[in-house]
């Protein structure tokens, strides 16, 4: 995409800016849609309708909420570290935004096609922890501090099983680049990594159960990484009121909000890239049938978004079904169950790929 823009505009700097700004074009509408979806999913699961007033069936509710948030007073309490307090929400958002740079939306568009794409994502999402800690500490509020410390401990712990599963996928595919990884799972859905990858052999069948296990482990730990129920400790509204963003209001609060939904989609997209073929269609392309090559990238964006949104939907489904675990149980799940199983999975997949 970047090369294409350079050819089109003829200026590398402007092209770089446009290329970098493209994810915003996706994130903001996604958040507007995602928040509405969350409220609709919650509503229908709970035998009610959700927002119904603004627009047809409330489709403009989030837009209205967004403008309301923009108008809100930006409250900064006394006795806090103003510099870092103001900086934290942007850092959190930057952390989740930077992840989008390495996500392959289609074969033609990837923000930055770096060879170390997947490690870049793991590394850069660590920025979120710094931002959350900053927010909690500078708020000078005990609830915020509890939320922030829980969140930091949680995200750091759950990165280990996530990284282990990613490592096993790297062993299987032999690449760290997400674009390449997606490209390997081309054609139909039985070529997806969760069904053992594109290569037809005896090992493919052997891999399937461990791929499913890996997917489950990865999905559970990704839930914890984005602080969703049943692991929404940092925000646990019944205990900590709002967690690390209790003291924020107006646009800074909406930054946290934006980051949360952006993160939800990012991990879901990662799940689909690692296990479910990334941007590839499960049933072939209309563009191929019609002979319109130009249609394929758009179809790929559609499939990428659809898979991502499906996993976001599962996150919402879980949120409105399950209670919340306690903070020590959360750590127990991670250190006593997820990490050993992830190790075991890594080991077995390693042995199978060697056969």
């Amino acid at each position, binding site marked *: 995409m970047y090369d294409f823009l350079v050819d089109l505009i003829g200026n590398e700097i402007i092209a770089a800016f446009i290329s970098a700004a493209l994810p915003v074009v996706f994130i903001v509408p996604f958040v507007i849609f995602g928040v509405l979806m969350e409220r609709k999913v919650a509503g229908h699961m*709970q035998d009610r309708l959700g927002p119904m007033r603004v627009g047809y069936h409330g489709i403009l509710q989030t837009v209205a909420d967004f403008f309301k948030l923009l108008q809100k007073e930006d409250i900064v309490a006394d006795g806090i570290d103003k510099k870092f307090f103001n900086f934290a929400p942007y850092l959190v958002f930057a952390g989740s935004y930077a992840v989008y740079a390495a996500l392959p939306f289609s074969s033609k568009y990837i923000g930055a096609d770096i060879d170390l794409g997947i490690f870049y994502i793991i590394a850069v999402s660590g920025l979120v922890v710094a931002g959350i800690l900053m927010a909690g500490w500078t708020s000078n509020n005990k609830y915020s501090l509890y939320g922030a410390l829980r969140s930091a401990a949680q995200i750091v712990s759950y990165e280990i099983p996530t990284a282990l599963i990613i490592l096993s996928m790297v062993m299987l595919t032999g690449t760290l680049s997400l674009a390449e990884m997606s490209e390997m799972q081309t054609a139909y859905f039985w070529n997806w990594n969760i069904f053992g990858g594109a290569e037809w052999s005896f090992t493919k069948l052997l891999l399937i159960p461990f791929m499913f296990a890996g997917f489950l482990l990865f999905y559970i730990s990704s839930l914890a990484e984005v602080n969703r129920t049943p692991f929404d400790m940092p925000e646990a509204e019944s205990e900590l*009121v709002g967690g690390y963003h209790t003291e924020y209001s107006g646009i800074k609060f909406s930054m946290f909000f934006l980051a949360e939904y952006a993160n939800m989609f990012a991990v879901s997209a990662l799940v689909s890239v690692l296990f479910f073929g990334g941007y590839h269609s499960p049933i072939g392309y209309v563009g191929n049938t019609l002979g319109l090559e130009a249609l394929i990238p758009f179809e790929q964006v559609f499939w990428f978004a659809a898979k991502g949104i499906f996993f976001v939907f599962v996150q919402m489904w879980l949120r409105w079904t399950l209670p919340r675990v306690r*903070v020590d149980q959360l750590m127990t799940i991670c250190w006593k169950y997820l990490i050993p199983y992830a190790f075991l999975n890594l080991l077995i997949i390693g042995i199978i790929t060697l056969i």
Partner: protein
Amino acid sequence: MAIKTEQLILNMGPQHPSTHGVLRLEVELEGEVVTKVKPHLGYLHRCFEKHAEAMSYPQVIPYTDRMDYLASMYNNFGYVLAVEKLMGIKVPERVEYIRIIMGELQRIASHMVALGTYGLDIGAFTPFLYLFRDREKILTLFEMTCGARLLYNYMWVGGLSHDLHPDFVRMTREFISYFRPNVVEVNELLTFNKIFIERTANIGILPADTAINYGITGPNLRASGVKWDLRKNDPYSIYDRFDFEIPVGEGTMGTVGDCWDRYYVRVLEMEQSLRIIEQALDQLPEGDINESIPKRIKPPAGSVYQRVENSKGELGYFIISDGTLNPFRVKVRAPSFVNLSVLNELCRGHMVADIIAILGSIDIVLGEVDR
């Protein structure tokens, strides 16, 4: 070299989503572990008992509504029973039955709020709305009968404010058959959920002797394995005519008297209340509900104590009459107030998140704690 550390004192409430009202808790913490919980009360104090002295006997009834606002019918029930005992009034059979039906419906409604908000405290939002949806049906029944949905002023000294609506019996039966499967649904969704059990089993264990020493009553006492229910042990009104069980905590998921037991006893009690309502509907006699309402309510000088089994525990009214139109003194033994006193005992050694779980399992209503 020892690092100098100090305890963290966390102020929880009065404006906190999970203190079930304006309760303030001063929590001393060692890391995330609670060393002491000190409840501060009085944010909702409305001088009910003092007010009652300046009012005539029937005028006190709407004030009793406002104590435990989730079980207003039962508050009315206890008060009118006390005044009737003082005056020696025998109410007609139909009135007795209607009172029992209303009281048990109210108990179910109150338990629904308790269970729903408990799920909310643990982080499960959906069962809360399912239970509120069903509670709506009970409120509709009340609204049909007396026009009010929360504060009824329905039971009068010697009678009732309105007779039943012609559709009431049919609709109550419909409600019973509608609600039974829904209890199963809530059980599947919340009660036997692995995470919910992890959060509540073996948390906040209340041994039977501690419970008795603190004067704990109601579902909280029964969850500790003590079979004590005033409807059976000291029957008032016509409770001795009905066939029902007293569910007690058995430590199914952990230890007897833990949060899960306190929760589950309420689930089982709803079924028993449904049974009582069914029997009462079958036996409901015809008659005039107003025939024993006295023209002038002026009890003779003396005092009376009447206790009833509220949804929260033992609700007692102690009334002193000096022979005038106004009570000389009305003292209420509020179950929520007494039950709350054990909080520090239960919370010590648990984590911050468990305070919420324990407080929710005690099921307090601040209107009754502060009065």
